[in-house]
């Protein structure tokens, strides 16, 4: 089937099998940041924004995105300038192997759009569906709190 969606701000016409997952479609389209960690909705490595809300792309039918907005990590940061979440992840050692990073950043974007002043507990709750095997979550949580603080400062 053929349909349109807005991918990282650009309207695209895409082709997909009716039973295809959004994850498979996005990777096929070249969005390799969307990672396949389990293809089962547990690890969160495939998290993308669907109309601004973080979802497991492996759990969403590609066709469901028809007419909707999808955002992946490829669309983040403008013209070589990193988003605060990316910068904080780099600066605070939150990235080890980096495989979980895209999913965590996209999930964090959803959190911060709806809660610009999260507590540590709220950050952990928001990331409950993003597994990381390298960091023990310590520095990723710190990085998101730092990014939130930076974004609040920038908004003032």
């Amino acid at each position: 089937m053929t349909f349109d969606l807005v991918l990282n701000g650009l309207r695209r016409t895409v082709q997909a099998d009716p039973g295809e997952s959004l994850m498979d479609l996005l990777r096929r389209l070249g969005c390799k940041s969307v990672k396949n960690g389990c293809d089962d909705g547990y690890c969160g490595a495939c998290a993308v924004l669907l109309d601004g809300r973080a979802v497991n792309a492996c759990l969403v039918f590609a066709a469901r995105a028809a007419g909707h907005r999808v955002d992946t990590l490829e669309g983040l940061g403008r013209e070589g300038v990193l988003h605060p979440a990316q910068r904080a992840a780099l600066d605070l050692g939150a990235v080890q192997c980096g495989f979980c990073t895209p999913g965590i950043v996209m999930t964090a974007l959803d959190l911060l759009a709806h809660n610009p002043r999260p507590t540590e507990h709220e950050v952990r709750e928001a990331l409950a569906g993003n597994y990381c095997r390298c960091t023990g979550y310590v520095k990723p949580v710190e990085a998101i709190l730092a990014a939130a603080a930076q974004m609040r400062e920038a908004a003032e």
Partner: protein
Amino acid sequence: MSLTGITAYLQPGTLEEAYRLLDERSIAVGGGTDVIRHPHVGVTTLVDLGALPLRYLRHESGFAIGATATLSDMLEHPGLAAHLEGVVTEMLRGVGSPLLRNAATIGGHLARGRYSDIVPLLLALDATLTLFDGTERTLSLADYYREGLHRSRALLTEVGLPPAGPDTAAAFLKFTRVAYDFALLNCAVRVRLNGKGVVEEARVVVGETPALGAPVEAAAQNLEGGPLDDDRIAAAAEIAAAVIPAQHDQRASAEYRRALCRVGVRRALFHARGRLEGRRL
């Protein structure tokens, strides 16, 4: 995981159209998060309900929740968060993950009819469902499962939660191994007291036994007609532990489930009682 063997993905614009499309080779899809993980044998067509005006959450005297409202929609609704000291949000916070809740719909979840924390609590709250199968009708959630309607073509359009008076309290809890986990067992309770502190109406629902949540009538009846004191709570918990259809599976043994049931029903009732006491302060 991408499904092979699907030949059509349809997005009807009206309820009638959607219902007409449902047959042995097609299945309704809300968020699709369950269908995509558990392919149904012989299904070649997916009927996405996303274009229907079913994504709403109205707070009137009770709540009317449209079938394609996501679990996050429910979790983030301030009225629902305040209802009965937040028992619904307390339960939803343990369901899946934020990522899952952003995509999964209440209708899709209820139609699946298994692995549920939501069903026990909604049963305890006497939830109703509105179905469309050519005509529209409303029935209790309990009857929906009792009549096997979740396996029928009937389209779930709305979930209703009745209003709760000042002498009603509810509680929910689940036992897991890690936080992001299906329950080893879950318990939902609701009690309504009269002016003299006597339990007039009680609901005790236990789920993941591993069967889908079901009311434990004997335990509830035991609570009714007396005060909500420690002894009567313990007795109700004891009855529940004895009568639930506990079975052994990969997650837990039957014996352990009964032990959890005894603890869970007791703790849930204590929690509900604490909420009632909290209101009087």
